[in-house]
């Protein structure tokens, strides 16, 4: 199967310190990959390099076989690489319906239209309602985001990303900060993600990783130290060292 998303020998250093060091990985349509790693492993930098918010020192990023290293963040989104944010970045004064509709209109190249209202565009409204329906948010269609619960905001993040119909979806800690009681809904949403989508999830919560991922990549000190099946990850010596080492230190400090 051909790779829909590839990272080749990606390198980035901040004032001499290599934060992403020669990372190479490849994903195919339908992949469910979790990227994990201890604090400071360089996950955030990696995400920013992939989305185009940072320029790598060397290496390439490819989407559908096209090299997009020199393409800016907007261009990558338009080519099907979409991300969600670790801390929700939603428009507090706008409604879930507006969020999703805006994403749909933008995807279809209609967000620049200076007349008309999405409320009176049946196709947009239907798709919005359907998408929010699958995530169980349809009753909140017209509430302000600032008035809805955090767990629901996280779901809305996913909805906005899905509305863009991505080929590759980067989920940055989709369940971060959500109370335990609400994570079920999010897990369900993750399980129901479309099959024609490659998903790379950055996550801390190992329970979630094991339930969701069919492949796990471990990043430590900017390098990939493990790339394989979830079942094998805990047995790997390098991973144990990277994690337990840091936890041991942490518990000493505490």
């Amino acid at each position: 199967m051909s790779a829909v998303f590839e990272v080749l020998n990606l390198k980035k250093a901040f004032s001499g310190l290599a934060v992403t060091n020669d990372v190479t990985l490849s994903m195919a349509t339908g992949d469910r990959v979790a990227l994990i790693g201890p604090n400071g492993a360089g996950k955030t930098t990696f995400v920013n390099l992939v989305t185009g918010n940072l320029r790598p020192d060397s290496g390439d990023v490819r989407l559908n076989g096209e090299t997009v290293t020199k393409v800016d963040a907007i261009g990558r989104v338009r080519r099907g690489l979409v991300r969600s944010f670790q801390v929700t970045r939603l428009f507090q004064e706008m409604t879930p319906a507006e969020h999703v509709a805006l994403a749909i209109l933008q995807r279809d190249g209609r967000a620049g239209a200076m007349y008309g209202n999405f409320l009176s565009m049946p196709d947009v409204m239907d798709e919005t309602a359907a998408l929010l329906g699958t995530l169980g948010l349809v009753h909140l269609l017209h509430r302000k985001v600032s008035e809805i619960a955090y767990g629901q905001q996280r779901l809305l993040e996913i909805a906005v990303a899905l509305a863009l119909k991505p080929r590759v979806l980067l989920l940055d800690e989709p369940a971060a900060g959500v109370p335990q009681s609400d994570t079920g809904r999010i897990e369900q949403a993750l399980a129901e993600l479309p099959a024609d989508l490659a998903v790379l999830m950055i996550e801390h919560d190992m329970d979630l990783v094991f339930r969701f991922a069919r492949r796990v990549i471990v990043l430590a000190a900017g390098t990939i130290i493990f790339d394989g099946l979830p079942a094998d990850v805990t047995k790997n010596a390098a991973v144990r060292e990277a994690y337990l080492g840091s936890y041991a230190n942490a518990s000493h400090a505490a």
Partner: protein
Amino acid sequence: MTEETVAVTARQSRSIGRDLLGIGAIISAAAIGYLLFPDNLALLTRIIAIALLVLSLDLVTGYCGVATLGHAALFGSGAYAAGIISAHYGIADPILMTLAGIVGGAAAGLVCGVIILRAHGLPQLVLSIALIYLFHEFANKASSWTGGSDGLSGISTDPLLGMFEFDLWGQTAYFFGVALLLAVLMLLRVLVRSPFGMLCRGIKEDPLRIIAMGASPKTALIKMYVISGAVAGVGGALNAISTQVVGLDSLSFTLSAESLVMLVLGGGGSLFGALTGTVVFMLFEDYVSAANPFHWLTMVGVLLIAVVLFAPKGLYGTAAGFVACRREKRP
């Protein structure tokens, strides 16, 4: 019919209802103004022209979050464009002059937008200040075209539609102004509710999120700047047509700052907030400056401080919030 579509239809009819209410409110305000001050239509016409400027500022500041103290550049360019085609080329038809104002304002909007959007926050404010001074200085230098500091005089205006003279009593100018304001307002209502308007509100709240959606905040803002320029240009043209003179003050920092004060006073991010701010500020200024021409500035200062202390979202914003709050509480 599903539950959702019922809700949507209800929503739409409510917003159309609000539109009609707004238009009705403006027409009745225009009528009341006409009846209350039948012999001070010049002031009312001027309020309309400035209201167009403040509306235009609202588009970039209230809806898109751009901080600018140089917005009169757009208004003044419109005024000079309308004035110059009349004074130098003898094109005296008010509608053509308005069109010239729109073109002039939009062109200035493009220039300002491209430059101002290069920075954010305080540096952005300062860029806008530098720009308005450049525009002002340029108009001062190009005195063979603009009349320099003496002002551009010699503007003549044909009767509107060949029938209505722009005369001393200013009725034609007033009704022309009201018509322009209504037309602009209706178009802007459509614009701010359109997908593009929604995109701009998104940019105001979080440009990075918009980028993550694959849209370019900069392109959208420049488009908005051009539209804003066209609106300000209508105001400038109205000013040129009704007063038959254009002065350097129409490209001044003072006018820019005043329009920003009016916008914040009324409450940015809503078209009626912009209108409220303009009308309240100009009428207040007119009243206190006539009552005490020597020390009225202090009164204006007190008004501004009072608004910040007691109506922090602006007059219209606070009033609308109050009404919404009451409605929520009602079972």
